[in-house]
């Protein structure tokens, strides 16, 4: 192999060129040097493009619904992102980072779509709303705790999201259906990841089992909120945009029940919290999450990054 000429070649690996063409972050997504999503996967930039061309615009109700899903993903990604560089194994730094990235990806798509109703971007919605304007459920803002708490939270989230997205694939709203079609495949992996860890931790050592039980105790009070119907979901289920959250509960109970049974864990006998996240009522944790997430963007209002 000849040497000196190829060491700094611009092609193939080791490309140190900076692709000044379209190096800016604005414009359509294909300008990004970091576009790595293969195939025809739907990206938030694609949705933004459709919006800017006037091809899609959600109704107020649909935007409100997309906001809920977007906020769930965003707040969870914010929580999970903290694990990167702190996980019990390098493999888990990667796995939890991957789940966070998937959640953030879904959030970006849903928020971009929701924003079209009010002429707002995903970043306007993420960085410049106040606490009571967020619509995520309480489960998503629960602290990471130890690894078992994070796994317990992820277990509930991924089984819930799997049921939801697998119904939304057939939504009468084509954008919601398209985002969900991508999301459901990813969430399926999240289910597998969290279920395997529930089994390992519950069936590992005495310590891990005790921690797993405690983890479920801490997050289980926030399960019911996920399956609550309200006026918005009632209207949207009538038009086939979504299904009533309560209709997902049986499958959720059945599938999580199978794993919990295999792990020889009982469903924690803890009272359910009242929730309220879908109406903008949040826990004490939310203010800190937003303070950290929004601080830099708010220091430079109107700036582009």
């Amino acid at each position, binding site marked *: *192999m000849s*040497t000196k000429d190829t*060491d*700094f070649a611009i092609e*193939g*690996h*080791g*490309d*140190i060129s*900076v*692709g*000044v063409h379209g*190096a*800016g*972050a604005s414009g359509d997504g294909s300008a*990004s*040097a*970091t576009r*790595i999503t293969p195939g025809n996967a739907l990206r*938030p930039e694609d949705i933004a493009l459709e919006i800017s061309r006037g091809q899609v615009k959600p109704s107020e109700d649909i935007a409100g619904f997309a906001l809920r899903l977007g906020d769930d993903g*965003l707040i969870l*990604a*914010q929580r999970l*992102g*903290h694990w*990167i*560089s*702190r*996980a*019990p*194994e*390098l*493999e888990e*730094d*990667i796995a939890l*980072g*991957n789940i*966070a*990235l998937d959640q*953030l990806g879904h959030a*970006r798509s849903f*928020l971009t779509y929701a924003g079209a109703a009010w002429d707002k971007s995903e970043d306007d919605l993420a*960085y410049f709303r106040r606490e009571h304007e967020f619509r995520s459920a309480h489960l998503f803002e629960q602290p990471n705790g130890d*690894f078992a708490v994070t796994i317990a939270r992820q277990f509930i989230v991924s089984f819930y999201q799997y049921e939801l997205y697998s119904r939304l694939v057939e939504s009468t709203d084509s954008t919601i259906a398209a985002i969900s079609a991508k999301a459901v495949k990813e969430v399926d992996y999240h289910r597998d990841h969290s279920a395997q860890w529930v*089994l*390992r*931790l519950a*069936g*590992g*050592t005495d*310590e*891990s089992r005790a921690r797993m039980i405690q983890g479920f105790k801490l997050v289980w009070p926030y399960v019911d909120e996920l399956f609550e119907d309200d006026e918005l979901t009632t209207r949207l289920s009538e038009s086939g945009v979504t299904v009533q959250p309560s209709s997902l509960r049986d499958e959720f109970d059945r599938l999580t029940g199978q794993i919990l049974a295999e792990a020889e864990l009982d469903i924690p006998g803890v009272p359910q919290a009242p929730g309220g996240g879908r109406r903008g009522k949040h826990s004490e944790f939310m203010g800190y999450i937003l303070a950290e*997430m929004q*601080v*830099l*963007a708010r220091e*430079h209002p109107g*700036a*582009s*990054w």
Partner: protein
Amino acid sequence: MASQNLQSVPAELSPEEQEREAAGQAYFDRIISEDSRIEPRDWMPAAYRKTLLRQISQHAHSEIIGMQPEANWITRAPSLKRKSILMAKVQDEAGHGLYLYSAAETLGQSRDQMMEDLIAGKARYSSIFNYPTISWADMGAIGWLVDGAAICNQVPLCRASYGPYGRAMVRICKEESFHQRQGFEILLELSNGTPAQKQMAQDAVNRWYAPSLMMFGPPDDDSPNSKQSMAWNIKRFSNDELRSRFVGMMVEQVKVLGLTLPDKDIRFNEETKKWEHGPLDWNEFKEVLAGRGPCNSQRIERRREAHENGAWVREAAVAYARKQAEKVNAA
């Protein structure tokens, strides 16, 4: 060949063993002279193994410790797109650490042992990660300068004589190339942004420039291991040679950014055809390397904390796997 001088054959070897050693050495020498590859099962001089193990494990540690300064901004990234890119980048670094630990394991040391050495402060990692990331623009400067310098160092390593290392580096370099671009993109956006953003970008470049030049290692006349590594086809270019090439590239790119490098002495020497830079504070380099940098203690502590907090999880995974295996055996 220099490698032969380092090879010492212990006296207690039987004649057959001595013959095997000599044949191994001859094979090794031929592979090196043909610029071909040594694989894990091949015979190799003990010093070659030791040098590679040191270099690859240090490289792996650098990836793992290097996650921290950037992870510092994941929760505060100022746009969701940037947050997503930064998460993916730090995740890539964990992946690089994994490939490299695996490559190092083929030389006979376990990942656990390497991790223990890192936490105990016995192992080194790139000293640049002992500097703090105090602004968002540091994400840009790290991508552009630090990853840029890393690429200059690492592209030649794709042809390193040790197969597993060279192959790991191919994939790592591909990803590093994205990292460098995203850093450049961050700085370009800041430089074209508000005056406060542009100032943030210039400040970050000012702080990361000299440390990134020092990533290539001490000047050639003060780099005792370089010669041997070059003779073994592990290292292909000298520290100063790579540094000079890097400066040449940055000089052009900084113009596109609309920023400046904090070095008045950069010039292209027409006689040597090499880029030259101003003096670097090698005393600071040695201080940071010796553990007296701004974040040395913090970085190791974070790694220790993550590792120790995770001990019960790793133990659970092992215990569960053992129980599952017992079930299968019993069935």
